[in-house]
């Protein structure tokens, strides 16, 4: 039986979709069968980040409305064995799916996949409620900014209320140079304030823009720092103990960054 993990944040534009796509790639690279579910109905995005936009026939709403079977709506990624996408509908809105239907869909996916990653829309309304409906775990994406961390705190409260086990944090778009100069909050600052466990740190990386332009997630190739981070997070999802410094920084930056992050 697979596990359903929701990727959420409260605030928009902090990297949920990018994270979902790259963690999907990294998990599949580990040989784990992974299905990505785009729960952002009406603002479909995950398909283009993955470069699968031309292959969509059916979507999540078609599945819940009974126009097709779940299997028919899944798009297999030809670049990578074991990675599939269940796209969102672009023409409907969030009310086209209920939390109960979402739970049924993810339950069915659990029979076939090791991991189901649900890309949550921004906000705390119906779309968010759908995204967390079937989730057994949550990953919270936050950038080192006041508004993003604030929204993350709100989401952590809502996840607690929904009795989803303690969420883990991904700090995205970290700029170590700025932290060093005192111009950006550090990972420790954020972890301290939110009081949740860290699962990974993704640096600000131009390669994210380039790879997203191409529809080839950074984790597919081995030459981006962000890609390295996603691979480490995927291993931690699987349960491996991956030391933080080992992956968050490329060789050479190691000791400098360890000082900045203030952790081993």
């Amino acid at each position, binding site marked *: 039986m697979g596990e359903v993990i929701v990727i959420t944040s409260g605030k928009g534009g902090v990297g949920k979709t990018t994270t979902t796509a790259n963690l999907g790639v990294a998990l599949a690279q580990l040989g784990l069968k992974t299905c990505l579910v785009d729960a952002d109905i009406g603002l479909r995005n995950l398909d283009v980040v993955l470069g699968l936009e031309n292959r969509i026939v059916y979507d999540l709403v078609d599945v819940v409305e009974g126009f097709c079977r779940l299997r028919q709506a899944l798009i297999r990624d030809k670049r990578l064995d074991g990675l599939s996408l269940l796209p969102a509908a672009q023409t409907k809105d969030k009310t086209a799916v209920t939390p109960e239907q979402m739970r049924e869909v993810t339950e069915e996916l659990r029979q076939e996949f090791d991991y189901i990653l649900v890309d949550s829309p921004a906000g705390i309304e119906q779309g968010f409620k759908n995204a967390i409906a079937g989730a057994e775990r949550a990953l919270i994406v936050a950038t080192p900014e*006041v508004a993003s961390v*604030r929204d993350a*705190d709100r989401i952590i*409260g809502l996840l607690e209320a929904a009795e989803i086990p303690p969420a883990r944090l991904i700090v995205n778009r970290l700029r170590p140079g700025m932290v060093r100069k005192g111009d950006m909050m550090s990972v420790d600052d954020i972890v301290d304030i939110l009081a949740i466990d860290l699962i990974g740190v993704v640096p600000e990386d131009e390669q994210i823009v380039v790879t997203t332009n191409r529809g080839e997630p950074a984790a597919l190739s081995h030459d981006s720092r962000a890609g390295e981070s996603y691979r480490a997070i995927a291993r931690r999802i699987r349960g491996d103990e991956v030391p933080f410094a080992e992956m968050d920084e490329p060789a050479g930056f190691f000791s400098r960054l360890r000082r900045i992050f203030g952790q081993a």
Partner: protein
Amino acid sequence: MLNLFGRSQSRDVAKNRLRNVLAHDRADTSPEFMEHLRNDVMRIVSEYVEVGGQGVDLQLQSVEDHVALVANIPVKQLRRRGRQGNN
């Protein structure tokens, strides 16, 4: 920490602002939170004083760069001996 121009580093400013705003957010989004805190404070304080008026009034206030939990507790009279036997 201060920078060259004597201004606080923006990292520290961000941290303080966050702590501040989250204190209020957490209190606001969980009505029971303040209620429970008030009840517990009332219970403990009552062992030492006879609380008068409207009882314990608790408020989160932003003071300069931090958040303060401010209590206003009208006292009818002090008990002769607080928390039996302790003094």
